[in-house]
C-alpha cells in the first residue's frame, strides 16, 4: 500500500532498506548531520519525496524520540507504507546497533585491562564536558524569559539536589507546558 504515489515508479522495499542502511553507516556526526545526508540522498538525488514533505517529516520527527530516526521512518512510510517505514527505521539503526553491540561486548570482556581502563578514564571528563556544552547550547536557545528559567532551575533542583524521580519530574513539566500552551492559545 502506498499512501500517495508520486510520478515515478514505486521504490522497492529493498532499495529503502539499503539506502537507510547506508545513511546509518556513513552518517557520522549524528542528529542534523544525518538529516542533511538523508535529505541529499532522498530528496535531491533520487527525488523520492518532495522537499516540503521532507521538512514536514523533520518537524513531526521532533515530537518523540530522535528526529534523525523519525525522519527516516517518515520517508520510508511515505514511500511504501508501514513496511517501508519499518524497513527504513531498521536499516538506519542496524549499523549502529551492530557497532555498539560489538563495542559493548569488547568492553565487558576487556574491562579489566589496564590500557582500556586508562583510555576510558580519559574519555569520561570529555563526555561530561560534552553534556555541559549541550546544556549551555540548549539553554541559550530554549530557555528564554523568567518562566522558562524558573522551570529549568526547578527541574535541576528537583533532580540533582532533591533526587526526585526524573521521569516524574519530566511528566510534571509536560503537564505544566501543556497547560501553558492552552493558556497561550486562549489569550492570543
Amino acid at each position, binding site marked *: 500500500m502506498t499512501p500517495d504515489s508520486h510520478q515515478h515508479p514505486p521504490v522497492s522495499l529493498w532499495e529503502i532498506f539499503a539506502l537507510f542502511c547506508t545513511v546509518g553507516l556513513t552518517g557520522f556526526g549524528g542528529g542534523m548531520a544525518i538529516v542533511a545526508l538523508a535529505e541529499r540522498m532522498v530528496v535531491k538525488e533520487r527525488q523520492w519525496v518532495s522537499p516540503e514533505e521532507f521538512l514536514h517529516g523533520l518537524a513531526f520527527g521532533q515530537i518523540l524520540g530522535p528526529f534523525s530516526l523519525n525522519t527516516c521512518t517518515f520517508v520510508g512510510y511515505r514511500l511504501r507504507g*508501514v513496511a517501508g517505514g519499518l524497513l527504513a527505521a531498521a536499516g538506519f539503526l542496524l549499523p549502529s546497533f551492530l557497532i555498539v553491540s560489538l563495542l559493548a561486548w569488547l568492553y565487558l570482556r576487556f574491562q579489566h585491562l589496564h590500557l582500556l581502563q586508562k583510555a576510558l578514564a580519559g574519555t569520561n571528563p570529555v563526555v561530561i564536558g560534552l553534556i555541559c556544552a549541550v546544556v549551555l547550547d540548549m539553554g541559550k536557545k530554549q530557555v528564554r524569559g523568567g518562566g522558562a528559567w524558573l522551570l529549568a532551575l526547578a527541574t535541576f533542583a528537583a533532580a540533582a539536589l532533591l533526587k526526585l524521580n526524573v*521521569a516524574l519530574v*519530566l511528566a510534571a513539566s509536560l503537564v505544566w*507546558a501543556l497547560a*501553558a500552551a492552552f493558556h497561550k492559545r486562549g489569550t492570543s
Partner: protein
Amino acid sequence: MLTLAWTYLRIGLIFFGGGYVLIPLLQHLLVEQYKWLTLREFLDGVAISQLTPGPLAMLATFTGVRVAGFGGGLVATICIFAPCIVLMLFVGRYYARLKEIDLIRSTLDGVLPAVVGLVASAAWSLGTTLGSLREWLTLLVAFCIFRWTRINPMVMILGAGIIGMLF
C-alpha cells in the same frame, strides 16, 4: 528480561527534544533505581554510543548488553525505539489532518527548559565520578572545545581515549 523490555518501553514513550533527555532518564533508572550498572560504566556507555552514527539512544543498546547480553541489547534497542517508530508511522498516515499540531509544538517548546534542567542535573551527578585535578582540567578543556568549535564529538572521544591510553 521482561523488566528490561518494560523499562525501555517506558523510556521510549517519554523521551523527546533530540535525545539528550535520555541521559538523566537512563542514569536515574539504571544506575540509581535498578543498580544495573555503575556511574562509571554509564559514562563509558555514553562514550561508546557516541562512536556510532546512530542517535544517542544507542546508549540503550549498550546498557541492554551490559545487563543481559546480546539479547538484552536487542530487546532494549527495539523497545526504546518502538514508541517513536509507531508514532511516526501514524503521523505519516494522518499528517495532512493533524490540526492540533500547533498545540503539540508549543507544549514541546514549553517543556524544553525542563529538559535543559534535567540534562544539567545529569552532568551534576556524573561529575561526582571525577576525582583528580587532571580530570577536572580535561573537563574544562573539553567543554571549551565543544563550546567554541564545531568539532565532531566522536573525534574528541576517540582522541581523549588515545591520550588517556598514552599518558
